[in-house]
């Protein structure tokens, strides 16, 4: 590793993998003591808490970016080097923070989820608590890898690896609907992800136009697919020391962006490639739904952002309008598609899954609008949505678990305010937050996005800055009207669902236990975050979001 690469980043990267390995070892001894599962569970939570602490500390750093190259295999005699490049800038740190917040809350709540689970004799290894912890740690590891890797092919591999862990976790309950959801998830995301790889192949070919890779020093040839190299944040030298700035073929970059958008967009749950999302999020255990919705979708969006930044830098003004226009259109389309499904009668977890589609649409809508304000709002919205959606899934998961013990299943769950007042209150307030009610966090980020859109209606001047797509005013007006219409209808839809859940009639003797620290602790943690971010944004965090915005707009802060 390079000397300026902080040790803590390495620790952060390998800790979840290390926890998985501990889990595998523990699996061989679980028959000796029932405490091994619990110890592993608490170790997972402690490790997640430590990583969260490191991420928060990283938010205060300013010496970005950090780079490192790791050569696990090198055979100089035949000019063969296999290099893994790491690159961490403020955008990476933002996503690392997001991953660790949700992973901490989900792993903590998992202890409550797994508390009463008694695996049957024929249960597979991933259906057992130890298997669950192994997979959650593996999932956590792969999601941390995505924002830390520089090589775009390596990033693809990391995204593909997230499929492995998450697929088994979606199928955890081994019901027919879980298997169906997993199968659909695999087929659709595999189809999408292979298109993303095709996009990356196009990008590799874009590079070979003006640079002969065979003339680049062998030990850095693998770095030619690194994002930081492609955007020109670094240079590779020929053997005689001449600096190389890559020029990329515009047509190939354009194709690369389109295929990456469709491919990674499938994983990010953007319409019309979203059809796996309601099934997988609805059928997975609630802590896993929180991870899928809060983090996995954002990880795929992170990669789209990296391609988006590269495409805008290469394609310049005329291309920027197209790339941003496509994002704007996809965002609005996702929002519009989600609306009727939130309005109709559906199991509540499925409704929450459609809210993920809605909010991913809002984020992409903000990114497509362009301009520093809208993009700032979109970036902040990623964090806010992750927190709020996780809160909703975890709190409803607590409710489902307790109601199901009494034989009451999802469509018939009602009267939560009376049966579980604390969880019910959090659920109701979280739901209001989710639809953009003040004084919560989602209201702030949605307002900023809207403000960014309205500001775009003001004339930009003789020549728009290169990093702002110059849409006609009519387009922006229509986009804002559609945005407001959809979000208003969605507000009505979710409030209706919450009314039935929390205020419906239930039998007087249905008093349920709220659960202990593992049930309520993560809820309070996320609720406090949700409330604070609605009122105040810690200035290092604001700086981080601002720097991320600058990176999205121009490649460097």
């Amino acid at each position, binding site marked *: 590793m390079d000397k300026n690469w902080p040790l803590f980043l390495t620790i952060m990267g390998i800790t979840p993998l290390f926890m998985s390995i501990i889990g595998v070892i523990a699996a061989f001894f679980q028959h000796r003591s029932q405490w091994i599962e619990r110890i592993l569970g608490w170790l997972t939570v402690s490790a997640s808490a430590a990583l969260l602490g490191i991420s928060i500390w990283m938010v205060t750093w300013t010496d970005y970016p950090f780079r490192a190259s790791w050569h696990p295999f090198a*055979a100089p005699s*035949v*000019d*063969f*080097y*296999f290099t893994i490049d790491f690159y961490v800038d403020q955008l990476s740190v933002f996503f690392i923070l997001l991953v660790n917040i949700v992973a901490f809350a989900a792993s903590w709540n998992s202890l409550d989820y797994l508390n009463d689970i008694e695996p049957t004799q*024929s249960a*597979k*290894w991933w259906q057992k608590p130890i298997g669950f912890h192994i997979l959650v740690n593996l999932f956590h590891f792969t999601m941390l890898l995505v924002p830390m890797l520089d*090589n775009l*092919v*390596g990033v*693809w*591999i990391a995204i*593909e*690896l997230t*499929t*492995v862990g998450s*697929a088994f976790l979606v*199928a955890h309950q*081994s*019901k*027919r*609907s879980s*298997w*169906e*959801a*997993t*199968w659909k998830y*695999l*087929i659709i995301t*595999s*189809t999408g*992800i*292979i298109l993303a*790889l*095709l996009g*990356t*192949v*196009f990008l*590799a*070919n874009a590079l*070979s*136009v003006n640079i*002969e*890779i*065979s003339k680049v020093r062998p030990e850095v040839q*693998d770095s*030619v*697919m690194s994002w930081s190299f492609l955007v020109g944040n670094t240079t590779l030298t020929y053997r005689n020391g001449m600096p190389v700035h890559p020029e990329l*073929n515009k*047509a*190939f970059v354009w194709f690369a962006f389109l295929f990456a958008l469709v491919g990674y967009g499938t994983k990010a749950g953007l319409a019309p490639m979203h059809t796996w999302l*309601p099934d997988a999020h*609805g*059928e997975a255990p609630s802590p896993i739904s929180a991870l899928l919705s809060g983090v996995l979708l954002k990880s795929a969006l992170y990669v789209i952002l990296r391609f988006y930044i590269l495409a805008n830098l290469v394609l310049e003004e005329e291309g920027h309008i197209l790339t941003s226009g496509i994002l704007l259109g996809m965002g609005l389309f996702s929002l519009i598609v989600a609306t009727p499904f939130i309005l*109709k*009668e*559906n*199991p509540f977890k499925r409704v929450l899954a459609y809210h993920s589609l809605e909010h991913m649409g809002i984020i992409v809508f903000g990114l497509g609008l362009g301009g520093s304000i809208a993009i700032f709002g979109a970036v902040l919205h990623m964090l806010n949505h992750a927190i709020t959606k996780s809160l909703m899934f975890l709190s409803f998961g607590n409710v489902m678990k307790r109601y199901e013990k009494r034989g009451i299943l999802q469509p018939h769950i009602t009267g939560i305010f009376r049966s579980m007042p604390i969880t019910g209150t959090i659920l109701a307030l979280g739901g209001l937050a989710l639809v953009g009610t003040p004084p919560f966090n989602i209201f702030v980020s949605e307002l900023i996005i809207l403000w960014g859109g309205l500001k775009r209606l003001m004339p930009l001047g003789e020549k728009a800055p290169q990093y702002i797509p110059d849409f006609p005013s009519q387009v922006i007006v229509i986009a804002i009207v559609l945005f407001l219409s959809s979000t208003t209808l969605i507000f009505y839809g979710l409030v209706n669902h919450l009314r039935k859940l929390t205020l419906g009639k239930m039998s007087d003797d249905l008093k349920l236990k709220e659960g202990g620290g593992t049930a309520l602790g993560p809820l309070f943690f996320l609720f406090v975050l949700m409330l604070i971010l609605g009122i105040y944004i810690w200035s290092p965090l604001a700086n981080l979001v601002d720097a991320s915005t600058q990176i999205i707009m121009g490649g460097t802060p």
Partner: protein
Amino acid sequence: MNIIDSGIVLIELGMLYTVYRILTDQNIKNVITAYRWQSGLLAVTTALTAGKQVRELGVTLTFFLIVMIVLLPIALMAFIMPILARATIYSPREEDGSEILHTNLLMHNLRKSKWYLFSIVTPIEKLTAKRIWLQHKHKKRPPFVNVWFVVFLAISAGIVFRGIPSGTQGGFTLGEQFGLFVSLVLHLTGLYSTVVKSNIISQAIGVLTMDQGLYLAVVKIVAIPVPATFFVLSLYAYTIVTITLLLIIIPGLRHETKSIALEEIEQTSTLKG
């Protein structure tokens, strides 16, 4: 065009024929056979293409890398039938073993252990799977519909390909152009199969066909040895992940739904709305 290039083009024509068979044949067993032929032809064409690039570029390349490039399609050709046969019959851990017929006590005990995934599929199990494939009812679709779809997809691939300018200095050779066209056809037909096929086995074949299309594209247009090495590794990861999940997810799905037909699964599904 020299004799090697001509040979590669002929092999790629053969791959186009396997695409035609995968799309038009209603028999699952024949679809799998066509896929196996496709994998074999892919192994040969990638070996020839990689070897040709090594010779032209004068790149020093270990034998290991060439083997790595051809190993995946060869492995798929050899193992896809037993993998899909295992996926089609009930999970061996199932209590009711009426569909599992073991030829000997060793196999029976192996199946009961946690290492059952690594046990070999027996001939009787393969026969059972083939019987299920034959019983599977397909939609009555006129053969010419699928033929027209093949033609349409090939034309679409051609249009997409014509829109892509030459990326390498000096442009693509005729052989490279044809190879790219074939890879796009594989990709699009795999996607089409995934969408329209009526059973989960054929859907899996569709996903794997897309993978093979991309494999061919990588070997054709990405510089060897780098960054092609990374791409080949990524395709290994994709295929290994897909196969592993096929070994576990399809048996689980079939155990619960008692069917490989998507229509039957959807009719009785509770995932609606």
